[in-house]
């Protein structure tokens, strides 16, 4: 088994650079929705001390003073560039798993007899760079977890070709020694603390633990990680584009909310957005969950958290059904006297849109009309004006505050890049 992980180098920043040749070698940062914090940065910006997630207001002054270029996030553009990169990768191998907007696992098994995999990696890298302008790193290893380690090694050692093949045991061992356990795929902050207190600091320490003990003390998931660090292959390439199995729309509030009159319309906004996403995925759901919680940062104040799941009569993608289920879920969990900080709506139990379950007495003809209504609403919301449901809070839906977005270079006829 041999896997390659293709990882786009500071993807959002690289995208911004493709149509701005004047930004070559210049520091670039990209901000989150509402321009809150830094979510991507070029290596020049990293050298200036910019780190992931840092609030923009904190670094703004010094960054701009040093002639850095800042962008609001332009996901329309990044999404199109990502699709191009993935499309090219799909042409190289029979099996690929698109793991995120800027990462994909490639199955190299069928190629390994006929190709030098390192050269193959270099070839992929140069093609992607030439065809799209996006630079990628490629880590080749016996399994997914080690391919992630290979990518880390490319970053750590600043390998100029950006391609690394981890094959022989000595090389793998060396890489594991240099990888802090928190950088191992699937090990988060919390788990890292646990492992540290058990004397496990590097990926090599983790690889040396008996997997069965890990399963007992931690989880099956971490056991798989340990096995993969030891060179076994536990995680397959998931080449079937896996449909989402759950849609969550949830947000922390800007200010705490105590009354049901204020809370309900906001939760309804989440329900409406979730239903939109559901239709966009061409799915129907049969279960809606609602949750609300107070702030866990405010330890002195009274705490309350509630979650209620409502079963639908049949699979639906109709916003009105989801709104009524949301109401059914919210009412029993709401308790007055608490300052709520966060709420969310979760859609579960998906089935495809073409299947419709009817109740015995439902008018069959109504179905078509209803799905048309939702289609019209989605269409109008996308292209014309905003349609709200009566139970929504329309004030909280003001457009995102984003002032520094680049053009839709690749998706809008009116915003094409200009050449002289």
């Amino acid at each position, binding site marked *: 088994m041999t896997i390659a992980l293709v990882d786009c180098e500071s993807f959002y920043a690289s995208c911004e650079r493709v149509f701005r040749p004047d930004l070559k070698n210049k520091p670039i940062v990209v901000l989150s929705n509402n321009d809150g914090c830094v979510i991507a940065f070029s290596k020049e910006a990293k050298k200036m001390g910019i780190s992931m997630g840092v609030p923009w207001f904190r670094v703004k002054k010094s960054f701009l003073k040093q002639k850095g270029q800042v962008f609001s996030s332009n996901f329309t553009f990044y999404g199109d560039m990502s*699709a191009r990169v993935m499309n090219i990768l799909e042409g190289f191998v029979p099996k690929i798993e698109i793991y995120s907007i800027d990462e994909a696992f490639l199955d190299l098994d069928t190629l390994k007899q006929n190709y030098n995999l390192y050269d193959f990696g270099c070839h992929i890298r140069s093609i992607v760079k030439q065809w799209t302008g996006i630079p990628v790193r490629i880590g080749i290893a016996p399994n997914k977890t080690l391919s992630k380690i290979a990518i880390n090694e490319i970053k750590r050692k600043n390998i100029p070709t950006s391609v690394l093949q981890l094959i022989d045991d000595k090389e793998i061992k060396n890489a594991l020694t240099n990888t802090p356990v928190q950088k191992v795929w699937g090990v988060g902050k919390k788990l890292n603390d646990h492992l540290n207190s058990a004397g496990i600091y590097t990926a090599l320490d983790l690889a040396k633990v008996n997997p069965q003990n890990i399963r007992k003390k931690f989880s099956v998931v971490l056991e798989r990680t340990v096995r993969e660090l030891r060179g076994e292959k536990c995680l397959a390439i998931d080449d079937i584009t896996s449909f989402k199995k759950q849609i969550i729309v949830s947000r922390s509030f800007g200010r705490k909310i105590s009354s049901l009159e204020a809370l309900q319309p906001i939760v309804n906004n989440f329900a409406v957005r979730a239903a939109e996403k559901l239709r966009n995925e061409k799915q129907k759901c049969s279960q809606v969950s609602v949750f609300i919680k107070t702030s866990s940062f405010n330890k002195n104040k009274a705490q309350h958290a509630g979650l209620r799941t409502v079963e639908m009569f049949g699979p639906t993608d109709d916003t009105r059904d989801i709104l009524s289920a949301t109401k059914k879920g919210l009412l029993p969990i709401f308790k007055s006297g608490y300052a709520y900080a966060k709420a969310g709506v979760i859609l579960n139990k998906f089935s495809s849109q073409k*299947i419709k379950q009817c109740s015995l007495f439902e008018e*069959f003809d109504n179905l078509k009309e209803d799905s048309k209504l939702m289609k019209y609403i989605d269409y109008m919301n996308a292209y014309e004006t905003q349609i709200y449901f009566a139970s929504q809070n329309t004030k909280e839906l003001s457009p995102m505050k984003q002032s520094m977005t680049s053009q839709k270079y690749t998706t809008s006829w009116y915003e094409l890049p200009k050449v002289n």
Partner: protein
Amino acid sequence: MKVDYIGKISEENLPAIFVPYFLESVHAGFPSPASDYIESPIDLNKHLIKNGAATFLVRAQGQSMVGSGIADQAVLIVDRSIKPSHNSIVVATLDGEFVCKRLKLKPKMCLMPDNPNYPPIFINNGQELEIVGTVTAAINKF
């Protein structure tokens, strides 16, 4: 008529029956005699774009390439996967800007405008020229 209330059916215990339904309605009447001869309309993308992942559209500014049929504001189709050769029309970056010119590799490499009013651009030492892609077509709107 008199009805007795027997009880509520639990929604959870109902067996799920999936009924497929048809999106298209059936019309009765004489079928169109052309129905066997319908072909899909011409798709410009299919004819003008060979490699979608590597193809970008850009808008030309100015008169420097009118001789090649590229008017001001023309939309150019640029294929980054086609290696340019002598006389190809290319999009390149020069001093941090995109330019569209004809690439000449001999007698001396230069970017040649297609308008006698514009001089050829020779690449000086220290100047960085990067060919982005080859222009495969231009769309001029009248």
